[in-house]
């Protein structure tokens, strides 16, 4: 885990979508933020699906496969691990993942990718 110095205040907890994603604007960048309420976990990844370069992952369905949390791109259902960013279907390249923390009801995304 790398040291985070830049924490982006993304939204309030109540603005996030339970068991779904929202898109967070970070300058010119877009980050998908997922509130996995069922597992009581937060994840953040790049919003762009590497398959067809679409800004869409935040609108994808989340779920799990053999315990691994994942998101499915709404365009062609490519799935990516939310914890590692690895592509779980086919050989698309991995997506960037970001650390998330919640403090006093505000959700923060560490803007330096985990890997």
């Amino acid at each position, binding site marked *: 885990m790398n040291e985070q110095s830049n924490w982006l205040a*993304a*939204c309030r907890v109540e*603005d*996030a*979508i*339970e*068991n*779904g994603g*929202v*898109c*967070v*604007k970070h300058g*010119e960048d*877009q980050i998908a*933020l997922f509130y*996995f309420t*069922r*597992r009581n976990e937060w994840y953040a990844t790049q919003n762009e699906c*590497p*398959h*067809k*370069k*679409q*800004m*869409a992952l935040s*609108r*994808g*369905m*989340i*779920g*799990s*496969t*053999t*315990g691994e*949390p*994942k998101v*499915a791109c*709404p*365009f062609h*259902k490519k*799935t990516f691990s939310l914890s590692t960013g690895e592509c779980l279907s086919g050989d698309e390249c991995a997506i960037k993942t970001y650390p998330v923390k919640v403090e006093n009801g505000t959700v923060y995304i560490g803007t330096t990718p985990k890997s």
Partner: protein
Amino acid sequence: MKEPQIIVIGNGMVGYKFCEKLRSKSSSFNLIVFGEEPRRAYDRVHLSEYFNGKTAEDLSLSTENWYQEQNITLFLNNPVTKINRDLKKVYTANGLDYSYDILVFATGSGAFVPNIPGIEKEGVFVYRTIEDLDLISSYAKKAKTASVIGGGLLGLEAAKALIDLGIEKTSIIEFAPRLMPRQIDAAGSDMLKSKLADLGLQIHLNKNTTGIEGDGRITALKFSDDTALDVDMLVISAGIKPRDELAKACGIEVGPRGGIVVDEKMQTNDPAVFAIGECALYDGMIYGLIAPGYEMAEVLAANLCKGDKTFTGFDMSTKLKLIGIDVASFGDNFITEPDCRTIIFENKHKGIYKRINVSNDGQYLLGGILIGDATAYNLLLQTSNNKIVLPEDPAELILGARGGSESAGGAGITGLPDTALICSCEGVSKGDICSAVADVSCENIDDLKKCTKAGTGCGGCLPMVKDLMTHTLKSQGKYIKNVMCEHFNYSRQELFDLIHIHELKSYDEVLDALGKNDGCEVCKPLVSSLLASLWNEMILKKGNDVAQDSNDRFLANIQKGGSYSVVPRVPGGEITPDKLIVIGEVAKKYNLYTKITGGQRIDMFGAHLNDLPIIWEELIAAGFESGHAYGKGLRTVKSCVGSTWCRFGLHDSVSFAIRIEERYRGIRAPHKFKSAVSGCIRECAEAQSKDFGIIATEKGWNLYVCGNGGSKPQHALLLATDLDSETCIKYIDRFLMFYIRTADPLTRTATWLNKMEGGIDYLRNVIINDSLGMAAQWENEIENLIASYKCEWKEAVENPAIRKRFSHFVNAPEDKDPTIEFVEMRGQKRTAEWKTV
């Protein structure tokens, strides 16, 4: 109005069953139950399992909260001691009194204790209640030898219990010349006796006990033939005695040898007083089995709820496993020649005895006895009860067919009529069981027991229930279980019924109740589709928005680049100039690309997510509604212009198309479905390429089903001809519900039909002849869906919580996605090509 008050005296199996049956039919009675035992009603049939580690709670028939949940007042340890019929009151041991409008005796029976000198001595027990078992069990610790008086069913159970308790020498004393004198004949008794002897049980037949010896506590038994037997303890199981003393004391008529006299309605000589179970004497007979007791409970409960049922005696066939040995008798077990022909099979080596009594013409099975191997019992019982014609050599019934085939017993279970009573305790027929398997997807014994209650009484029918289940599953080709994904171990059809039965309304509820872990992109849209097909609630409510497929989630089709398309419904393809203008104005205002679709409506492309609600607000204000182009449901009903303009048109195809489109709009299905109506045989609407298509004829409409275009085009097949409009719609109703209920996920009607055994002929039989008997239910279900239709977009724009989700950035709600790019083409915009990867 005050509700009538029913008092039930007795909280045994039959009393409990009466409460259960009454409550399942009506809640409009005050129900009070008095029991003298300290615990809730328990399973007395399997009482001896108490010695094999089952607890009193395991044996209990109800859960602790059941009586409360059912609004039944239960008094335990509080027997009724007196009844005043003039005042209609009962008085209880704790000094209280209660009024009744209807009084039910379910007092059961006690052990019959013969009047033998010394019977009061310590170490003499009866075998009737859990308390009796506790006493026996604690006394047995210091006993080495024990006897049971009574070689009947219960006596053998008691003897088995004593062996289990570690008594070294256990014997059975029977007055009659054979064991189980009510069930089996002398030859059967001999076989049973030798098998019991193998297990270390001594059997004394023809023994009349005349005295119990011992100084305060039992030490020996004395018999009329001047012999004696040293024993440390004795269990009396010499039969039952109906508990009629309370009834007798208040002047209710009882039989000369006990039992409260009842008629076929279970009514005593006092019209307000009834008796059921082992305390009741019907037609001079006490029915000492559980099944007839339950039947009596059913008769009384039904009649109190304005039913009209009668008890007319009961089949006393039984099958049980005694100390590991099968013993069964059925039908007329003792009938002998010349009134029948008897076929006997005996194998002393294996300890098997089988006897069947066949009618003199060889046609029917009258009854029989089975010792040592009763696997054929259920089939034999059914063969006899249902008067199924026997095979040429009836011996095959007990020997098995020698041709090597499995067809012993006519056609086996398949040959039984649907009305054949399989579980006599609960009155469950073959038809009930098969339909629970086929229609409610009960695919294991536990589900089946819960659903039908079959096998929950004595359990004797369970092997046959299992066979029926397996057979039904097989006939449906259901062996390869078509599960959805790792989160749900069910097929779509199973989930449909389960969600329906459990009335689950959100994806999370379904996952919690029926699935595991977190779900995924496969099961989420599937379950969402089922929820929509079942309840037709706004799909974005209850947290279901995140369980929708991407298009359903934003009520629009996501397009290349991340913009959305907007498609209002244009029923039948008919649209006024004013509405055309509105579409044009909206498209211009929001810079949308417009195109006429294949389904005779207008698609507007290139809308930003943020703009969707405001676009729809304007369209709705102009009288448009959602076209569900994004949903797995009805898309369009195309039409040709029909008889209103066309010189060939036979009927008004446009009006009929509009009617149909408005009827089925918004209904979710396993996949999208399309329709069309043509006004004549020239078929300009291309109805034969649709999931259902309608073509006008001279006399009415021809209905075609299961066609589609797409990657594998398939012509629709003719289902019915020359229908009037109402019948045509009725058939479409049934067709759609059958499809919605049974198709696999994402299966169009054409593929669904291709997989259907029997094909279009089978489908026609189901739809037109109602061969499954489901038509009325389906019509009702689709009416509910039609009645609950609302425009999703109208609900979405009016609901602030849902509307809030139509923005791209959570932290910049006004900003649109800046990465969406358009380029110009032929005077309109189009989306930029996929960015190079």
